[in-house]
């Protein structure tokens, strides 16, 4: 029984933390956020992340990657959350996972190598305007020739992406690829390249300045199907996305808590440090318990996906819903317990609050994941 990060994984976390402290602290984040017309994709950070191999953390070694698992990726995601780091890292890692899993050898060779060294920015477009994460939320249709029509919304960094993995419905399931009518059919993943015909990409105004979103409008846009993709592939991608979002969130949550503790240890009201007031202290203690549970849950879910454990689907839903709760509570408390200053633009608090808002709804909100928990537990009791 060893339920913990390895020494290597802890060292990786240290390295990420040190790099951010050194090269991309909250002042750098603020510069990106305040530059509203900018693309939100700081090039120097991207270069540094690429040099560290963090873009290729899950890329197989034969494609020049680190060949590690989601458990390692979540170490990075967590630190990026704690640092409210901007940029398409998670989107790129996810797109890479799809290409790796479902792409042809040629697609893998073309995408994974450049992606790993930072030459490609990639992202995933999985839901339509107003749609939820899941097959029912897709608003892109593919035809038999692989042309895409429709729209996708809230796509992270589509405006700077070189390749976009697009989820599309397929009216006639291509029997060859889907491997039977049960799991597959009806949904496929497609590789769309920058600057192709029939693709319009427009930036979307959002609440979280640390992560930029864009909308895709597709009109007969030619795209290459990932041959191994099917409904299960989409589910796998959504699961990985949920774990990376949860890891980022739990990083946000822990940072929110730590920063609040630090602030209220110093801040004096009524002649005492605010942190010595019991009502506040007990609330922060409860948050510590919640954030700790969320940290465990993300670890377990990442490991369960890496190892194809039979309870992997449950673990993902548990992790995302628990993390949503912990991060929502912790960032709201961060605003409240900073007093007036926590509500200002000049203070860093709103980065954490807004990033949490976005991520809580990313890759499935709590309602969706809790219903998944119910399907896997309530409905399976004999």
């Amino acid at each position, binding site marked *: 029984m060893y339920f913990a990060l390895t020494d290597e994984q802890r060292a990786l976390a240290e390295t990420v933390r040190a790099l951010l402290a050194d090269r991309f602290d909250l002042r750098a984040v603020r510069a990106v956020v305040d530059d509203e017309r900018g693309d939100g994709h700081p090039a120097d950070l991207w270069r540094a992340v690429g040099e560290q191999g963090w873009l290729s953390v899950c890329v197989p070694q034969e494609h020049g990657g680190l060949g590690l698992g989601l458990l390692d990726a979540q170490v990075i995601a967590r630190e990026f959350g704690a640092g409210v780091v901007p940029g398409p890292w998670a989107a790129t890692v996810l797109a890479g996972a799809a290409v790796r899993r479902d792409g042809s050898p040629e697609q893998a060779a073309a995408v994974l190598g450049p992606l790993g060294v930072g030459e490609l920015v990639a992202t995933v477009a999985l*839901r339509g*305007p*107003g*749609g*939820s*994460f899941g097959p029912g*939320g897709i608003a892109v249709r593919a035809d038999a020739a692989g042309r895409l029509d429709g729209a996708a*919304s*809230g796509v992270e960094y589509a405006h700077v992406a070189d390749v976009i993995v697009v989820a599309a419905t397929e009216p006639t399931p291509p029997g060859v690829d889907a491997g039977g009518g049960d799991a597959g059919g009806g949904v496929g993943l497609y590789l769309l390249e920058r600057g192709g015909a029939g693709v319009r990409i427009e930036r*979307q*105004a*959002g*609440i*979280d300045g640390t*992560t930029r*979103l864009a909308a895709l409008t597709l009109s007969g846009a030619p795209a290459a199907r990932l041959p191994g993709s099917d409904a299960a592939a989409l589910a796998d991608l959504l699961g990985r996305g949920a774990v990376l979002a949860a890891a980022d969130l739990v990083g946000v949550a822990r940072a929110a808590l730590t920063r609040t503790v630090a602030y209220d240890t110093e801040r*004096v*009201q*009524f*002649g005492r440090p605010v942190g010595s*007031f*019991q*009502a*506040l202290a007990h609330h922060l203690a409860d948050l510590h318990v919640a954030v700790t549970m969320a940290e465990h849950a993300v670890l377990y879910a990442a490991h369960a996906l890496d190892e194809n454990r039979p309870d992997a689907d449950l673990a993902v839903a548990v992790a995302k819903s628990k993390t949503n709760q912990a991060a929502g509570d912790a960032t*709201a408390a961060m*605003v*409240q317990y900073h*007093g*007036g200053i*926590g*509500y*200002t*633009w*000049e203070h860093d*608090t*709103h980065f954490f*609050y*807004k990033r949490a*808002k*976005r991520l*809580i*709804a*990313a890759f499935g*909100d*709590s*309602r*969706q994941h809790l219903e998944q928990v119910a399907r896997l537990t309530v409905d399976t009791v004999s």
Partner: protein
Amino acid sequence: MDLSYPPQAEEFRAELRTWLAANIPAAWTVPGFWATVGEDEAFDLRRDWERRKALAGFAGIDWPVEYGGRGGTPAMRAIHDSELVRAHAPRSVNSLGLVFLAPTVMAVGTPRQKAEIIGPMLRNEVIWCQGFSEPGAGSDLAALRTHGVLDGDEYVVNGQKVWTTFAGRGDRIFTMVRTEPGSSRHRGLSLLLIDMDAAGVEVRPIRQMSGVSEFGEVFLTDVRVPASQCVGGIGNGWATAMLLLSFERGAAGISQYTAYRQAYDEIVRVARALGRDGDPVLRQELARRRVELECLHYQAMHVLTEVERGHDLGAASSVTKLQWSQAYQGLFETFDELLGADVALLRPTADLDLTALRQESFWTRSVTIWGGSSQVQRTIVAERVLGLPRGS
């Protein structure tokens, strides 16, 4: 139990409603309108509109006629506030003056202060700011450090105020200053009135997390304030402040209810536009929020009843504050939740612009902090209502 208003009050309602219908521009009633106007322009529109309303006789509703008021009842005041919300009138730009300073001056001001302050405030000729909070003295007013030293018949004031609404646009500020050198906590304070364009007053706007800049910081450097510009007596500032704050009696509850009901309906429309109003789980959440709004309405009627009977409200305003701030904040938590994956976008679909609701959602995070944080209000309720022993 009688939930009707007297005929005189209902007549007033009809008159006001007619006037409002004739005087509020149609564009203002479109949800989200104010988010489309620049902050400066919005302020001017609101200031001018409110002046016209005052000149039409719809201001100082429950103030004595001698002060230019209408001499009405608390019920008429509640009707006035509520009708304004109902008609989508903008909020007052002079509310801190109207709610706090004016009744204080009526109670303890000099004849000259009464003459100089109340009328111009009513007609929005002078917009008032409030200068109580300081960095390091948020909920703890007695910790303030801004000080004034007597020099002849003027106080030379130095210090810094924060969270001052309309700091950049107001004309004057009523501010709490430590006028007795070496005093501490509740002693040696005075309520001084300062011109915002006096020498030594500098303002820096504070941008909120929503992007809006309604607050500001006010820096006071050797500002000379005539001793005559003190309300309630030099050194008597704590008592004056307590009197002043007592005028916030939670009487705003009925108009707040009206406003939050509008937000509730607006949020339901968003849920419907996104096809989520049939979700049984969301319906429970929306219903839970509505229950709290209805309770706020009951509490407002309770407070109005007590005020009309001249009863001492005690700590009821803390109960009202906890209820309205949490109901309002909670409503917008549900708003965020029902957006699902679209919470991150200002325009999730082509015909759905959530900018204004989004700003309001951020705004609700502040309402449990200012005006006595929820923590301070709970302490008041625990000690003064429940009579629990004081913590050390």
